[in-house]
């Protein structure tokens, strides 16, 4: 066809110039020859002289033996002599038998591998999360700083009727050991008459101990203990009177004295904060 096209001249575009063959459905075409950009020097000592070996396209067939001082020596024959080593030592139990199909156990083997992978993944994620949070939380307040936020008070140091003041979180903390008379007096107060209605028992855990933050709820002065008209506290700045439970009775303060979070440890100790 090519020669016809060449001779056709002006008719060339109209003459079918299909120079390539159409592959048949079953006969594969020989692959096109590889294009080598550089010349391979002719090696006349090559044991097998054929087109492929001269152009360097043949696998090095034939016996090839090599020996050296510091590299492994080897003998390579044709590809037929290559045998896959026996990997029985590494095989799982299900696929040890060379005459049993490996398809049957395929699902269980895969399942086991995927299960191990998933479990390891979960475990790793858990560990990683813990490590990361540990490192990041090391940037937050340290233990000694956190310790400053609590105070431990020995209750046996406070006699009955006495109010002791401590410094806690930069604020005064009042711990008052109340007498029975004070307790019953405060219990008897009519709650509905109070500006900030709260029953006494709602403000204490043990009635003989009342623990308050000693900051006036009006404008922040420190009230004086055992002063005022109600047997409790009196704030000298603007004249707020608090009772023995720390509730506001008279004066400009709007709310009762704050009751902090505290906990009795044993009989003798209270931890505030």
């Amino acid at each position: 066809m090519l020669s016809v096209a060449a001779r056709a001249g002006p008719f060339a575009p109209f003459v079918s110039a299909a120079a390539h063959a159409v592959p048949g459905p079953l006969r594969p075409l020989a692959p096109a020859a590889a294009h080598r950009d550089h010349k391979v020097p002719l090696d006349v000592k090559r044991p097998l002289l054929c087109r492929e070996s001269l152009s360097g396209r043949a696998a090095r067939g034939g016996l090839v033996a090599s020996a050296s001082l510091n590299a492994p020596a080897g003998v390579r024959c044709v590809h037929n002599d290559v045998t896959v080593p026996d990997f029985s030592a590494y095989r799982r139990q299900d696929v040890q038998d060379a005459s049993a199909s490996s398809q049957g156990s395929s699902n269980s083997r895969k399942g086991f591998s995927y299960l191990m992978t998933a479990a390891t993944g979960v475990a790793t994620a858990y560990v990683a999360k813990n490590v990361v949070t540990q490192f990041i939380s090391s940037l937050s307040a340290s233990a000694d700083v956190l310790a400053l936020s609590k105070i431990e008070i020995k209750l046996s140091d406070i006699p009955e009727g006495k109010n002791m003041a401590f410094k806690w979180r930069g604020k005064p903390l009042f711990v008052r050991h109340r007498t029975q008379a004070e307790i019953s007096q405060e219990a008897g107060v009519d709650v509905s008459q109070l500006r900030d209605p709260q029953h006494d028992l709602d403000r204490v855990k043990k009635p003989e101990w009342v623990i308050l933050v000693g900051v006036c709820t009006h404008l922040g002065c420190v009230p004086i203990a055992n002063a005022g008209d109600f047997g409790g506290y009196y704030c000298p700045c603007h004249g707020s009177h608090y009772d023995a439970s720390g509730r506001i009775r008279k004066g400009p303060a709007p709310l009762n004295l704050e009751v902090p979070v505290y906990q009795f440890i044993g009989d003798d100790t209270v931890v505030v904060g």
Partner: protein
Amino acid sequence: MAARSVCRAGSAAGRALLWGPRPAAALLTLTRKRGAATYAQTLQNIPETQVTTLENGLRVASEESNQPTCTVGLWIEAGSRYEDTKTNGAAFFMEHMAFKGTKKRPGSAFEKEVESLGAHLNGYTSREQTAFYIKALSKDMPKVVELLSDLVQNCALEDSQIEKERGVILQELKELDSNLADVTFDYLHATAYQGTSLAHTVEGTTENIKRLTRADLASYVDIHFKAPRMVLAAAGGISHRELVDAAKQHFTGAPLTHKGDSVPTLKHCRFTGSEIRARDDALPLAHIALAVEGPGWADPDNVVLNVANAIIGRYDRTFGGGTNQSSKLATLAVKHNLCHSFEPFNTSYSDTGLFGFHFVSDPLSVDDMMFCAQGEWMRLCTSTTESEVTRAKNYLRNAMVAQLDGTTRVCENIGSHLLHYGRRIPLEEWDARISAVDARMVRDVCSKYIYDKCPALAAVGPVEQLLDYNRIRSGMYWVRL
């Protein structure tokens, strides 16, 4: 101006060159009335294959088709799969020795007699079957049957010939070593079926070729060339009755019956997902074959897998389609210059098979080609479309029918079908099975064999860019719901 007039003149003349003189009107009506037989009619009109089993177990099968020539052959259930490590190569050696004379016709007398008939003698050995066939004139059929029986039963196995053949076979092994595609497939079998007899190459190892003796070959023939494992197939202008008579005359001899209990059975061959890499950066092109375990011959899934292969398509650089090809993978290969050629394959054995693809590419395109090919597999498993299945079915029907051109092809078809399926499957049945395939079936069957399965990989040449096995194994599934 002048050029344009020349072109115009050229066009008129060109048309004439292309189409030739117009046929006369009368002739035209004649051709129109004749009409062509439909495809279905043609399939139905193919003569039936007649099968007769002789007393000693030999199956005789033939398809008569009124032709002056015929092909008669023996297909034997013997091959490298039946050998063990010590006898690997016996089948191939036997094939060489078979043409070197028999007891009745020693030396070159056998070949001379074949040639005096004007006949063609040929044979091949594969992993599971051995075949010897003669193409001759139909009238010579009885003589041909006698020659075949002589070849199989009375092989001379002369010691001098055996020694001479050793050198010839070793030389042939060296030459086969340069056919890298075959080397890749041999490596693929060696790794996929490691530890089993399917890992053996057909030709055998050099050590065995040097070591095999007359006794080994004789015992191989004695065990395997027996009537119950042979099929005498014929196609062409022969009559089945005459063929059976000739077979009865020449094939009922003592050498053809098994001695007592020595019927060899095939053990199942385990498939191992694994890889073998023969890296050689001095070679210009990389040959890579990837396969999963497929079904055996008799499994109906084979039809669907062949349709799937037709969807994948083939390609090599001489294809003229460029980027306009029906195979998606081929279009990608052209657009991004991924490979020199690729082809899918579905090799079946009696109880297992290899379903995969093989490609040849430049050293720097290996990774991309593998990625695209595996992507195509995944696409087949998940989103095959009806239109491409229809196209593939038509292609497959075409290929099946076109394959049977000539008595030799038909004869081989008969022989191998009887060995693999126990019967000749007619084209009508193939057509029906192919028609029954739809996109959903392709997706299901492909997922069954491909999706998340461990493949076997063989790579020869400059394969540095081929990723490690774990990455390729990860390409066998998609992370999706």
